[in-house]
């Protein structure tokens, strides 16, 4: 069942590097990360690769396989022809540390800028919160995020425009904002922040983030676009503004959403 897999792996660090060719014996059912591990154990002991769970749950082993962002642990080798060379490179959007490992600190720094969850008072007679499943369904989709940062990596705003890292938080953080904005208990209004600090306007909804998400979160349709609409409510819709002024809050509204 086994065969020799031709691999091309980027090796190097901040000072430069190159694609190197390797041949690794692989077996049926293996994933790209298995091949990388075998390479590491037999031919390149010091090959740097970041991984943890190897089950698609932690989001550590993000890399680019044949030019596309993928979790190495969830990319089966039968995706490729046995004769095909599999090229593995580090995420391009972040500074390289070594080989396949990049410095993803950017994402953590951006996360620090998100105003935290601020729940209202519990409404249950037992002193605890009440939430309906229909209200948390949307939030739970976003909380599936495993922070593999592949959406950040593939987002052209960050990938092709280094200067935009200052002004745009990226899809991962948009999902974090969306999760808080749609959280039925949250009381903060982050819409101005979304427009200004987080730079939601830089997203041109070209949807590559959604395409690469290993958790199949509909980042654009269910996250960013609803955020853009919420920002439009607050900043670009005079009728909605007028409506808000004329109308008292409806119970479902909590003063933050809906025209």
């Amino acid at each position, binding site marked *: 069942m086994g065969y020799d897999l031709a691999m091309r792996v980027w090796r190097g660090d901040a000072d430069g590097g190159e694609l190197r060719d390797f041949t690794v014996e692989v077996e049926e059912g293996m994933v790209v990360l298995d091949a990388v591990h075998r390479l590491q154990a037999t031919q390149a002991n010091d090959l740097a690769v970041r991984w*943890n769970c190897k089950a698609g749950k932690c989001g550590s082993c993000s890399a680019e396989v044949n030019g596309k962002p993928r979790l190495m642990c969830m990319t089966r080798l039968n995706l490729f022809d046995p004769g095909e060379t599999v090229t593995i490179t580090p995420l391009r959007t972040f500074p390289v540390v070594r080989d396949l490992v990049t410095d993803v600190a950017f994402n953590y720094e951006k996360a620090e800028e998100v105003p935290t969850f601020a729940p209202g008072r519990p409404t249950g007679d037992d002193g605890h919160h009440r939430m309906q*499943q229909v209200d948390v369904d949307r939030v*739970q989709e976003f*909380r599936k995020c495993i922070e593999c940062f592949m959406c950040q990596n593939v987002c052209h705003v960050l990938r092709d425009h280094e200067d935009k890292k200052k002004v745009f938080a990226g899809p991962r953080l948009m999902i974090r904002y969306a999760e808080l904005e749609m959280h039925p208990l949250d009381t903060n209004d982050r819409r101005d922040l979304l427009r200004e600090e987080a730079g939601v306007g830089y997203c041109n909804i070209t949807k590559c983030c959604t395409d690469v998400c290993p958790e199949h979160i509909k980042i654009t349709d269910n996250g960013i676009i609803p955020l853009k609409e919420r920002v439009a409510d607050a900043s670009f819709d005079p009728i909605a503004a007028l409506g808000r002024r004329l109308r008292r809050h409806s119970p479902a509204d909590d003063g933050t959403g809906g025209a």
Partner: protein
Amino acid sequence: MTAETHSYDVVVVGAGGAGLRAAIEAHEQGARVAIVCKSLLGKAHTVMAEGGMAAAMANVWPEDNWRVHFRDTMRGGKMLNQWRMAQIHAQEAPDRVWELEEWGAVFDRTPDGKILQRDFGGHRYARLAHVGDRTGLELIRTLQNRVVAKKLDVFMECTVQRLLTAPDPATGGERVAGVFAYWRETGTFVRFDAPSVVLATGGIGKSWQVTSNSWEYTGDGQALALRAGAALMDMEFVQFHPTGMVWPPSVRGILVTEGVRGDGGVLRNTEGRRFMFDYIPEVFAADTADTEEEADRWYTDKKTARRPPELLPRDEVARAINSEVKAGRGTPHGGVFLDIASRRDAETIRRRLPSMYHQFKELADVDITKEPMEVGPTCHYVMGGIKVDPESQATTLPGLYAAGECAAGLHGSNRLGGNSLSDLVVFGRRAGAGAAAYAATLAGTERPVPDEAQVAETTAQALLPFERAAAGGDTENPYQLQSDLQAVMQSLVGIIRTEHELTQALKEISELRQRAERVAVEGHRQYNPGWHLALDLRSMLLVAECVATAALARRESRGGHTRDDYPGTDPVFARINHVVRLRDGAVDLTAEPLPEMPPELTSLFDPPAPAAPPASDVPPQSADAGQAQTPPETPPVAGTNNERNA
């Protein structure tokens, strides 16, 4: 070369559920806190927890309360648990769950808007707060966001190599003075001076071949504690989760959540038989259905029907699967079938078990809504760990605290599913509070100053693999060594153990330790996984020896420790915990009596649990590495289940 140095009140090692919760608590108690972790923040093994966190909130079953949870936990652990920890855990878990909700966790809901709770093996009532099958992710993300909101200092991809100690004027012995670590990215060293250290480093499963654990689970915390003078307890109890993937080979061991069974999945052998009905132990017979009809009815009618046998505690199910496979009724890949496809509709399966659905679809080309899964036991969890005080999680070394999987006591000889996540937050919080309180008592006195000699020694030791590579000669490859260790532990210290195999294991581990003296790594210090593994191997080998030593000493079968040569439980061993320490570099084992449970708790058991015997009843035991001997006073009678009935 001076290492980068930081000073804190409390340093938390590990950023899983327990570490993060400890850090948050220590911070709230006013301590200056640092979190030091081996991986990126939010990637810790906690994300792998799927099913849920057990807490007697009584949202689904009003009959549930902490006493029932306590009793379930003790019975699951075969009464070897530290009763006080089990009590605290059962009492505090609900508040910890509600607290997570206050911090932004979004659990699945009941129709009236409360937190929904699900059924799990060994729990009398549906008790697990959960989020689909990704509860661990929810827990860690909530705590991570909290840590970020509180602006705690987190040092990521920074591996602790040694606990630094200094003389303790209060006791005359040693006390914690800080930790010494290296940055994975650069390979440079960093020192954290702190009077309190919380170890929350997780488990040891990476020493087995078939494991659900990641590379991180190398027993760092256990080894750090041992080397610094603290003690480990119950190390013979390693939980093999009954359902891990078995095919394809590269995913062997990846976890299949117990939630599959909780939501209606059943185990069948290749003859199509629901074989779990053949493996119901006497102790659980009264609570377990004995016909398929009754078992199936239970999912909707918990009042009159008893639980399906698929939901027995994990040790029972794992042993049953093991027996079926050994009897030749397993699949060609060495597992059994776990079938939910024929029992629930596709939509329900996808909604209740989304990540299982994707996991099988993407890794094994199996559609679990149409076909059964192939599953088999996988090394999952270590019940043993660092010996701690139930109230404060303090270890035997002043200033050192431990919580989560790396601490011992709560789970006894076998952990119930769902009790680990609640363990993390309940005892993570207590460890954080304990560590902060200890640091506060030192205010105004001289803080311990780490010993420079320890720093120099550790630095030199850490760099040895490079020097050996430079020197050339007969060297060892760390990857090969790790793989050999895994083979030893899998075949000799696995689910079923014998004296002969354990003795052999100790011999082989000792040889591996000698080979480890020759480990060399190529390349340089910058993000070099070969080097990282070479350093982790020291912990793995030491902890593996502790497991084998304790397993050899326990001449009975109980929970996560099954001896082919002593298949029954033994009343003598029912009263002792095995404690290991490091004396002059050698693993030293003693048997210590279980603390006595107060009458108001013993009365919860029917028939009442026997009170722990006075200490003098317990045979004093001490054994050197490799020749642990624990002669029981009475020879065990095979098949006796009296103890289990307790």
